[in-house]
């Protein structure tokens, strides 16, 4: 294990000391020295994730994909924009923007609560044994974090203004392992802000936080893969599988107009089971959104989608706040 760690941190230190550190020094940004070092690791982990998607998940999709027979040049173009989202996210462009916006807010939050005397609790003190096992401790914080992510996701579907942003994620007709990062930047900022504050509040370690995000995002990428895979009756309830999450992206119809208000969990389906939003019984269905305005996101590039969704967001800021009461909710030709 240690040789692997040495290889990893050696590459990280080399990249940082050769490329980043001299730049920070020259630009008088040395107060960001430590965060920048961690950012290098984040980008390296992003490269690993991209490699996992491209070299492992996509070949599985091509071999076992539900929709492989029907894919044409037009549909490939739909998938292409998701690759742009993935690259921007995994290689640090979007996270940097999120950091610039979120950091002062999370910092202020931490400042306020800690000056008031609040210190983040430690699960290790509440649960005997966690202190003795790094893995158990990591999993405990992972479960907590995923619990928060579940409720954030429900909020994305519940509030009209947030749905206006999140609907971009659902507008993809061709859901693949690249789709996980297809989000509006403002949506990314909001989600990450809430989860970062939550993580601070419950005392997630910075090191654990990075690992939780990376492992979580890998699971989420795989759960978007266009394959009909589940992990058995028990496994399907322990870890989100592609079949489970595909239902969340299912195209609604008259019989089930709210089908994607199910299976919200990112990693652990237990939250859907506990809070009554789990569906395990549905066979594979087409994916997409039954709204002509939202469906029109397809076929546009990254910038075009960002602009369209921002306009949708501004319109949605006005009442009513329930997404189901949004105007222009017309059925698409596909539904």
């Amino acid at each position, binding site marked *: 294990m*240690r040789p692997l*760690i*040495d290889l990893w*941190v*050696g590459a*990280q*230190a080399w990249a*940082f*000391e050769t490329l980043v*550190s*001299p730049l920070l*020094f020259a630009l*008088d940004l*040395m*107060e960001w*020295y*430590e965060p920048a*070092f961690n950012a290098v690791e984040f980008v390296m982990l992003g490269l690993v994730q991209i490699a996992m998607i491209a070299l492992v998940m996509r070949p599985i999709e091509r071999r076992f994909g539900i929709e492989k027979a029907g894919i044409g040049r037009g549909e490939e173009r739909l998938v292409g924009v998701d690759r742009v989202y993935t690259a921007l996210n995994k290689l640090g462009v979007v996270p940097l923007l999120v950091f610039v916006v979120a950091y002062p807010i999370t*910092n202020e939050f*931490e*400042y306020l609560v*800690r*000056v008031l*005397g609040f*210190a*983040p609790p*430690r699960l*290790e003190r509440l649960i005997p044994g966690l*202190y003795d096992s790094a893995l158990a*401790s990591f999993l405990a914080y992972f479960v907590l974090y995923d619990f928060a992510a579940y409720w954030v996701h429900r909020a994305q579907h519940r509030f009209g203004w947030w749905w206006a942003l999140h609907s971009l994620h659902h507008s993809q007709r061709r859901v693949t392992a690249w789709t996980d990062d297809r989000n509006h930047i403002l949506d990314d900022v909001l989600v990450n802000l809430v989860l970062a504050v939550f993580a601070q509040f419950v*005392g997630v*370690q*910075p*090191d654990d936080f990075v690992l939780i995000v990376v492992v979580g995002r890998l699971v989420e990428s795989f759960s978007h893969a266009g394959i009909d895979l589940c992990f058995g009756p028990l496994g399907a309830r322990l870890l989100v599988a592609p079949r489970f999450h595909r239902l969340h992206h299912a195209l609604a119809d008259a019989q089930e107009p709210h089908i994607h208000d199910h299976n919200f969990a990112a990693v652990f389906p237990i939250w859907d089971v506990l809070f009554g939003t789990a569906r395990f019984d549905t066979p594979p269905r087409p994916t997409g959104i039954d709204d002509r305005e939202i469906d029109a996101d397809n076929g546009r590039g990254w910038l075009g989608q960002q602009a369209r969704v921002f306009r949708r967001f501004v319109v949605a800021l006005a009442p009513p706040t329930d997404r189901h009461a949004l105007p222009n909710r017309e059925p698409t030709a596909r539904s």
Partner: protein
Amino acid sequence: MNSAFIAALALVLGASTLARADQVIVLNSEEASYSVLSRSQRAEVQRLPLGREPHHLIQTPDGKEVLIASTVTNELVALDTKTGERKRTIPGIVDAYQLGFSPDGKWFVTASYRLDHVDIYRYDGTTFTLANRTFTGGMPSHLTFGTDSKTVFVSLQQSSRVVAFDLATQAIKWNMEVGKVPAGLVMLPDNKRLLVALTGEDAVVMLDPATGIMTGRLQTGRGAHNFWPKGDGRYWFLSNRVEGTISLIDTQEMKVDSTVRVPGGPDCMDITPDGKELWVTQRFLRRIAILDLATLKLTGSIPVGKSPHGVFILKTPVMPMRAAAND
């Protein structure tokens, strides 16, 4: 029979204590743990959980405890200096990133890097009583004291300033701009020269501690960061984080005597009790480097946890075996 039994017992106890005195404590700041290393084995022998983001540690004035500051949990964790065993936890010490005792042992000061304040505590040998909290802004990072225990100097990394507090009144004596990203500070034994390492530059500046006015400048290495005394009052080690070197500074001549390459963002240091080795945390490599002071060459690098920051070498205790033998 009785004395033989006592001698045997002392031998066992002595061996155990000596083994612990062989230990080095390293704080793994980004994984909530500290590593216990064996100097003789040159290896990590244990990794123990500790609070959240432990960065720095210091010995109490009576030498009995090592206090580790767990910044995010607002507490100090005290280890026995001789055995390395955890003795107590002191709550309510808020965001103690950097910490220090005045030379007379009556004042305890912490720099709160994230929460932007400097706390001055009265210390009676056991308890810490907050005398004053000053919100300075600018990320307070390192601190040092006047040799007369009347003043504490704190560097503010973000605002490029150093601020001096009168300990008796806790009032600010001066607050001066000194250069980019000031970090480590050291007061020289004459109490008339205050050195400040500039991490945003490649230099150390000298200040008049009475006024904060700059009186000198010495070019060292890029990312000049932290000091550690060689022990003779004249020579000081300085870590240059960006350049990846350690400079040995002659403060009498005010020149760099020698420079050694230590890769991986070298930061905090400590010297072995025999004065033969300098141990340096390599923040980026998750290792601690060992520098032979006779040859000024790296002789080892021991793997530890993530972002190792503070380091403390437990000191050799009195040997019980010798006491028994003398009887």
